[in-house]
Every structure is written in structure tokens, then in C-alpha cells.
């Protein structure tokens, strides 16, 4: 587990610059909201996602989240078709705050161009790259 300024970034995941994580599971990927983003958003009250069967594109809308009075987009980290969405998280979105890489996953996607797109993501094992990306994000926003 990589810990960057207090936030967790597990090494076996990939990270999209719009604050989504990707876990490769056979021919599918599981995706979610990263630890830094959930903390920046605050306690989540709503999670809405596109439906199972709908297609998504990397960097385009997968859904929306709401913490008290703030609505933010969830961007899909890969292109493909939504195979599953986390109904428990849709009912109780604060599970994303409690366990962003476990029970707080958002969706499972059947990717259409995974090999090429993984190349655009930051590898969790690349601590230096993760750190410099997150430092730049924080510099922009604090």
C-alpha cells in the first residue's frame, strides 16, 4: 500500500487522473473513487451511475456523486460496457468514504480497449509518478 500524504493508494491498482481507480479482474475491470477524492468531497450522500449494459468512454461520465450540497462527476477510467454497478453503494454512498477500494467500489466494466488505455493510467506500483501527480493536484486546489 502506498500512502501519499495520508491517503491510501494500493499498489495493485491503476489510477485515472480524474480520481478513479481501476482493478483488473480477468477480462473485466472493477472501478471506484480514490481515497483522496472521497476525502476531498466529504461524506457522500448520493451516488448515481449509468445503468448496466450502457457503454462508457474513458474520461466521460460514468455517474455523479453528491456530498452535502456539492455534486461532482464520476468519470469512467476506461472505455467499455457497464457489467455491474454497486447497488449497496447506491443505497448507502458513504460506504465509498469508509472503504473506497473495497465495499465502496462503483462499477464493473467490460473494457473494449483495455491494453491501450491501461498505458494511459498511473500504475499503483509507480510511487514517484503517483506522488508527483497528486502533489500537482493538491497544489492546484488548496
Amino acid at each position: 500500500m502506498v500512502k501519499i500524504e495520508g491517503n491510501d493508494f494500493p499498489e495493485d491498482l491503476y489510477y485515472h487522473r480524474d480520481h478513479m481507480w481501476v482493478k483488473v479482474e480477468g477480462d473485466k475491470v472493477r472501478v471506484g473513487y480514490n481515497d483522496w477524492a472521497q476525502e476531498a468531497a466529504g461524506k457522500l450522500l448520493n451516488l448515481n451511475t449509468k445503468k448496466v449494459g450502457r457503454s462508457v468512454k474513458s474520461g466521460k461520465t460514468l455517474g455523479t456523486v453528491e456530498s452535502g450540497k456539492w455534486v461532482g462527476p464520476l468519470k469512467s477510467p476506461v472505455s467499455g460496457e457497464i457489467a455491474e454497478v454497486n447497488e449497496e453503494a447506491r443505497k448507502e454512498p458513504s460506504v465509498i468514504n469508509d472503504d473506497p477500494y473495497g465495499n465502496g467500489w462503483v462499477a464493473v466494466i467490460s473494457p473494449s480497449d483495455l491494453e491501450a488505455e491501461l498505458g494511459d493510467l498511473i500504475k499503483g506500483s509507480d510511487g514517484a509518478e503517483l506522488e508527483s501527480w497528486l502533489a500537482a493536484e493538491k497544489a492546484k486546489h488548496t
Partner: protein
Amino acid sequence: MESWRLLNLGYSTPLVAQTFYEAVAEAVHRGVSPNTLILLQPDSPYACLGYHQDLEKEMDLEFCEESGLPIIRRSQGGGATYLDRDQVFYQIVSRGSEIVPRNIDAMFERLLSVTVETYRRLGVPAEFKPLNDVVVEGRKISGNGAGMHESASILVGNVILDLNYDLMARVLRVPDEKFRDKMASSMREWVSTLKRELGEIPPVEKVHYTYAAVFEELLGVELHREEPTEEEWRIFEEETKPRHNSREWLYMEVPPSQAKEGRAVKIAHEVKVVEADHKAAKLIRIRAEVKGGEILSAQVRGDFFALPKEAVFRLEEALTGVRLEESAVSDVVERFYDETDVQIPRISPGDFTTAIMKVKGLF
């Protein structure tokens, strides 16, 4: 020092008042418009729904239709409300600005400091209340919501000159008129206005001037008065307006987090009026006004039969001021049984505790 644009759109139609900033956000995202502060007022009344809210659950659609009140689902968070000419809107749209933190709590705190100082200069001792409220002596005095449009950050809110409390309560869907009355009286108690605080409404121009001056001073930006660009009006006409006029948008399917049983209406910072049902062998219905974790007042009804009948009023009285914690609630219920010797067939003290604790689930 950052240079920002000021758009003062004056009195605008409800759709422009509530959604034009989305077109500005799209233009800001595309990099063709600068960071912008918009000031305006709606020129006529409308009802407004939070982005993730369930239209039919929140709004009294029949009333809105009969009264010709448009309903707009805003793209920002927060709850259902009624708006009219007596609120001055500020809409802050930016991208990559150093004065707008990405951390949401920090963003609200910094941008709402402008609202707080504006009220103070108008003569009202307003304060920021974490996470995102502006209050005067504990009462709400400004409504706010925020969000992201692609790379653009948005905060919208209002300076409340005056408020039509009755219409505010009237546009919302409620279980019955008693609930509505409770809601209206709670709004009167917990939401204030410049008119109430000052005894009169200051001129709209003075509110604009004060807000813009404070915005420049506190945030360290320079505002330049301009008009919207042709590109922004084009985005508004071709993208924003059709989206908001579509049935898909207004009747948007909402997440199951909105589908909780019972009814809860947020009145102000930490204050809600709620109704929760517990179906034991008989129905127990609790209505309560709650602030933070504390019951301000409660009503206990249902189809159970209590002997003596008046005993239930003792329970209602005893619930005032009680914290919504299982042990505290069950103590009150036990004491109520002990002190009144009440007989309630097929209902146990535990059923009352469960019913009352359901209120907490709606908070």
C-alpha cells in the same frame, strides 16, 4: 492578482436565472470564457429541485402546475426550494483558480466568507457555520449549492432579501396539511431574511455592489464588468435550454439513496421536519422537528389504542429535548409507561423506541 469577469444580468427569467451559469461553465471549461461571477435575480417565481432529488416525492406537482410555477432541476446539490424576485443570486464559475480550493469543505468556507461579509456590511451579524451554511443567530440566511461541470467549479447561492414562507412550504410535497403547517412554522423559526433582520429590504443595487466589492477584497481578485459572449448564449440556446426543457432531465431517475421510507424536509442548518412510520402489530407514526441529534418537538400518532387516551401527550412532551440515541429514547419511553400506567394493547415499549429511532434514519 487574478482578473475575473462580472456579469450582472439583472432580473432574468427563471430558466436564465437558474441555468445560464451552466452555459458559462461550459465556456469556462472549453477555455473560451474567463473565471466569472454572475449576479442576478429571477424575474418571476419558480420551484427548484436539487440535482439528485426525486421530483414526484419532493414537489407538489399539481400545485405548481395550477399556479403556473415552473419547476427546474438544478445541476447543483442541496434540497428543493421556492425562489422569486426577492433573492439575489451569486454564481461563481471558475477553472484552475487559485482562490477556489478543490477540497469541498475548504471551497465552501472560502467562497461563503464573501456571503458572510456581505451580510455584515449590510448590517446583519452573519456567521459561517461548517460545513456550508451561513447563519444569523442560529438561523439560516442564505441558500447554497455547488458542483463541478467538467473542469469548471461552480458555487451558486443567494442573498435572501425576503422570503414567502407560505409558498416555500406550499410547493413541497407533504403527507398532509398538518405536516405543512409544522414545516412552515419551522421555516419561520429557522430561516431569516434581510427584511426580518433589518426591518426593510435594502436596494438590490446595494446588495450587488456590496457583494462584488467584498468578493474583490476578500478573495483578492479584480472584477471587470462585461456582457455574456455570443458563444455563451449559443451554448445556452443549443445545449442548456433543451436539456432543462426535456422530460428526461426533470423526471430524472434518482438513486435509491433518495428512496428512504418516510418523509424528511430539511429546513435549515441541522434542522429537519420528519415523519417516520413503524409498522408493529399496529402502526406508530412519529412526526418530529429535529435539530442536530435532538428532538425539538414530537407528535406520536397511529392506529393503536391507548388507555388513558391523553397519556400519549405525556410521551410527546417527554420527548422534547431528548437526544436521538437508543438508550435516551428508551429511558423516556420506559418512564412514560411507569408514570402513566398506560395500557396499549399489542404495542410494547420497544415498539415506540423503534418508531422514534426511525426518525434518526431520516436525518
